[in-house]
């Protein structure tokens, strides 16, 4: 396994430097991510956008090496556009997730990319797929990823319910990502949220002072 992880090598955690999540509800998906890109201890970009579009209504949350994930997403976007030209309609989310898996698995020795692929399409509705570090496609009702995700498994496991509305999902994502940013050193900055429904894509940014402060019961 290649251990050249970037400009600095004092990072040990393989799923490094971020918190990403996606939640599906009836009629679409809500995706959220923090905005910190770090190289070792230096924060290289405190307002980065980790949720990138690969189609009109399909987005990918990126975690891992920034260069690797950007290259992979560019390839996926190319293939999806050609595919949608051939079939004559918008691409579907399982197709995008499968393409992501093909690229990540065939190059697994050279890549470090853990991705979450989510979106809305006509046939399947809102769908969330996780494509973790070595490849594989796993459909879930919600997925969390990145180094910060380890700190919020308890929160999401106890607070996720099937059949939440769009507003409840958005609040759930905001709470979870802000809790992860509270504890994880490599997540921080602002929360970027993308909501994808049949009617379109809404992008939102929740900046520092507007973050939900769930620890306020005991911590000022």
């Amino acid at each position, binding site marked *: 396994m290649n251990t050249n992880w970037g400009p600095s090598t004092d990072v040990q955690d393989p799923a490094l430097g971020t918190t990403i999540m996606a939640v599906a509800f009836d009629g679409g998906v809500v995706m959220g991510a923090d905005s910190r890109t770090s190289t070792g201890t230096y924060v290289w970009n405190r307002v980065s956008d980790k949720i990138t579009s690969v189609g009109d209504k399909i987005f990918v949350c990126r975690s891992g090496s920034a260069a690797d994930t950007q290259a992979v997403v560019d390839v996926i976007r190319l293939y999806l556009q050609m*595919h949608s030209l*051939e079939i*004559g309609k918008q691409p*579907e989310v*399982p*197709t995008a997730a*499968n*393409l992501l898996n*093909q690229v990540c698995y065939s190059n697994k020795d050279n890549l470090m990319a853990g991705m979450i692929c989510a979106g809305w399409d006509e046939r399947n509705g809102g769908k969330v797929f996780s494509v973790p570090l070595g490849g594989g496609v796993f459909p879930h009702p919600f997925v969390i990823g990145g180094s910060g995700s380890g700190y919020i498994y308890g929160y999401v496991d106890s607070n996720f319910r099937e059949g939440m509305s769009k507003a409840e999902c958005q609040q759930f994502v905001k709470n979870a990502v802000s809790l992860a940013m509270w504890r994880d050193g490599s997540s921080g900055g602002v929360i970027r949220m993308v909501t994808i429904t049949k009617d379109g894509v809404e992008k939102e940014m929740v900046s520092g002072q507007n973050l939900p402060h769930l620890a306020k019961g005991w911590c000022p």
Partner: protein
Amino acid sequence: MTSIKSGYDLSIATYSPEGRVFQIEYASTIVKNSQLVVGAICKDGLVLISEKNCGFQNKNFLNTENIFPINKTTAIGASGKCGDIHYLIGRTRYDDTTHREFFSESLTGPLLVARISALMHMHTVYWHLRPFGCSGIIGTISDFSPEIYVIFQTGLFIKCYGTAIGNQSEMTKISLENILAKFHTCRKNIEVISKSIKKMNPKLNVQTLEIFCFSKEKPIFSKPISYNILTENRRISNFFQF
């Protein structure tokens, strides 16, 4: 009008002064003399029917199928030279497998037909390749709706409600118009079409038809069913017609 001996028919890369490519027209006579294949859309699905050609005097039917499933939702009924048919089917199955590997969905509908017809057309462009000696009727379920396409040797493909290729296809198409207008179910369509095939050709020297059916009762293309045309017609009709 220039006739056959005038030398414009020696290569597929040559047009005649009237704008005809003779080689393709010669190639289409193979299909005109080959087994009949009929495809029709029914109320609850679609059906593909083909004559089983018996190449042997003793009328033993070996595994000479004319309708090939490509994946669970597509089947091609082909008429013409057997070797060309097998090559085309093998190529289509390979295309479907690689498409499923990349895009996690089967190749169906106009995408599949466009791939096959692009291949067939390519074989009519270059002087060193001969055109395919087969035509095909493709039945697919794409986006939950049944569709029938017919591909000719020139690479043209047409989407339709029902059609026929092979020997006696002109007469079959005429009777098919009346049958399709009534929009029967799959089972009824099989009976009606086979009766009209028998009526058109009283000296039919095949005893069974090969039938591929995709309907609500059995929504998967797996294996063709064999249909003894004489006994079934006898059962359906009120009095014996031979």
